[in-house]
């Protein structure tokens, strides 16, 4: 059962990653609009082309 010593901390790391990912998602507006994106797949028009990167970045 010594493997627990490795697996439990590993699980904690994964948990921390999951929490981190969730917090990132919240901070990046992933949960702000759950309606519009749902219909995006039905969008017949081609998506707006990514504008050429301005050199001023």
């Amino acid at each position, binding site marked *: *059962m010594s493997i*627990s*010593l490795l697996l*439990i901390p590993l*699980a*904690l790391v994964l*948990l921390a990653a*999951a*929490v981190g990912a*969730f*917090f990132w998602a*919240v*901070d990046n507006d992933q*949960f*702000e*609009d*759950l*309606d*519009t994106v749902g*219909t995006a797949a*039905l*969008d017949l*028009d081609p998506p*707006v082309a990514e*504008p050429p990167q*301005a050199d*001023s*970045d």
Partner: protein
Amino acid sequence: MNQAAAHLHWQSGAGLEQSEFFAEGMHCANCARSIRTRVGALPGVQKVDVNLTTTRVSVAWDPLVQRLGAVLEEIQRLGFKPVPLSGAAAEAARRSERRGMQKRIGLAGLVAMQMSMYTVGLYAGALSGIDPWIAQLLRVTSMLLAVPVLFYSGSPFLRGAWHDLRRRSLGMDVPVAAALLLAFAASVINTWRGQGQVYFDSVAMFVFFLLLGRYVEMNVRRGSLDAGEALARSLPARVTRLLAHGGNEKVALEQVQAGDRLLVARGAVVPVDGVLAEGFALVDESLITGESLPVTRGAGATLPGGAINLGAPCTLVARHGARESTLANMVALIERSQSERPPQALAADRAASHFVLWIVILAAVVTCAWLIVDPARAFEATLAVLVVTCPCALSLATPVALAAATTRLARQGVLITRASALERLAAIDTVVLDKTGTLTEQRMQLGAAEYLGNAAPEQLLAIAASLEQHSTHPLATAFTCASSARVPVERVSELSGQGLEGEIAGTRWRIGRQDYVAQLAGAGPPGAAAPDDERVWLGSGAGYAAAFEIIDSLRPEAAAGAQRLRLLGLDLIIASGDRQATVQGIARALGIAEAHGRLDPQAKLALIRTVQQRGHKVLMVGDGINDGPVLAAADVSGAMGSGAAIAHAAADMLLMNESLGTVGTAVEVARGAARLVAANLRWALIYNLCAVPLAALGLVPPWLAAVGMSASSLYVVWRAHRFARSPV
């Protein structure tokens, strides 16, 4: 960049500028898509985000290539009205609150999942044998995980309980916090001792489910606040201010100060309440007063913010800043109703508070009893009692149901402005209608016409229609629809709010108010002593030619609306200030038995008192002007339209959409809410009556108690949510 506009416009990191605004008129995925593609195709635009739910558009562009004006023009060309975010700061605060809540829930949920695995290990180990050090490892890990859940995710409960205790009241956070802290402390002690039960998973699960309930409740509540915001959006973002030395400048609405001279273009919304500086203005004040007919205002008259200028451009002297304007008042009213707690909810809170006291006493009794019977299980049973009997379901039942009803009504164009209105609305059995405008088309039609000259009626009608086709006045459609014949008109001029003048076959004709036509046709119209403002006059240099009566026909859905009210078991009474004949005609057409015309406010008041003395509960629907005492006398009052008058009147709700069917909807939803409250309370009571004895007998382990308690309050919230979303 001025401060007001800074809310919606800022420099973003990469040399881009960013702006956020509402696109009014967006209501489908298609609209959102067209904005995204068309604005995104503009040169220099780097990013376009469109939120269909909130109609919020966010654009980032390169200031070297593109201007904000062009972006806004493009959106206008697409048929939407770009409107700045009102109270962007408040919205930002709400957003950060929502995000904080989401993070708390996410953390608690993820940790609860992880911890339940450790708990399974501990339980399985207790049954089949486990190395003591592994058990200890699981306990310590759980403890470490429980710390952020309790003190970060659970902080709203701890803080709430702390505030409750400081105010010396027992809110529903108190037993929650007590149970959380007790469970945590006992588990820490057991971890320290290296033996015994730990309840860290119960803590995490408990926090998770409770937060979830709060989050749903918060969202349901917010829905109707947005309705107030939509109202505030009908005001323009920028206004044209005239400078003292001539010329003008565009300024943000928030910058308008009392005394500013503002230019209101034709078709534009009057931005703030103000005094007309000169000339005449023809305005549609229907949004403010519910008055269906456009009104003419002379110099010195007050125009309410939110009115629409239908005539020529006019100059307005602002009476005060945007914050004190009529529409701002309305939004404040709605917000007040949201912050007020309805008496029902207050009663539930008090009951819950007593309930908490009894629970604490019961928990103490249970502890003592178990200490005598079986000391080893005393703690577990106490914890179960504290957790399982959470009064949340009891305390939540009323507010969530009422919030749900408010949201649903807001979507139907009914704004509840007093928290207690719904409760009273559910009990009414009589509707007194003040405003006949509710029942009529409000689309003008030509009624009886009196022809005074020798000319053929068809010819005069053609002349009137030809003149009126040059007008944007709503009355003009009555003429243009009545006759298809046209004659050529030259040199047409319109005097706002007065009438039109034009030359037909060399003769000058005027159509409009009598005194306006009189300047051409000569004074003293045949057979009338006082100026007759009820009719539209047509005349030329040769004298008066005709007088037209403009009528309003009955709305097709009015009959259905009246029928609906009857089906709801409501008596309908018309009490109007209009002419008796008009009122009787409408009443007959709708099958309404009781109709009173020519009533002044005192008579209306007396009528309501009489009906109430007969034992009826009365809903009075008025237009909010000059009928404050009448509205106040009724058991519940609704005001059609909206506005300044309403802010001072006693209306409990605003009916934004002036149709009779809306009244039926409001009553139906209020009754539904009352049923929901009763059902929720019944459920909470039954749940508690079943759960408490079981927990006290030690039959409910703490984790199950947490699930049961959370499930019971989630069930209550879910039902309310379903109610808010259900179609009418």
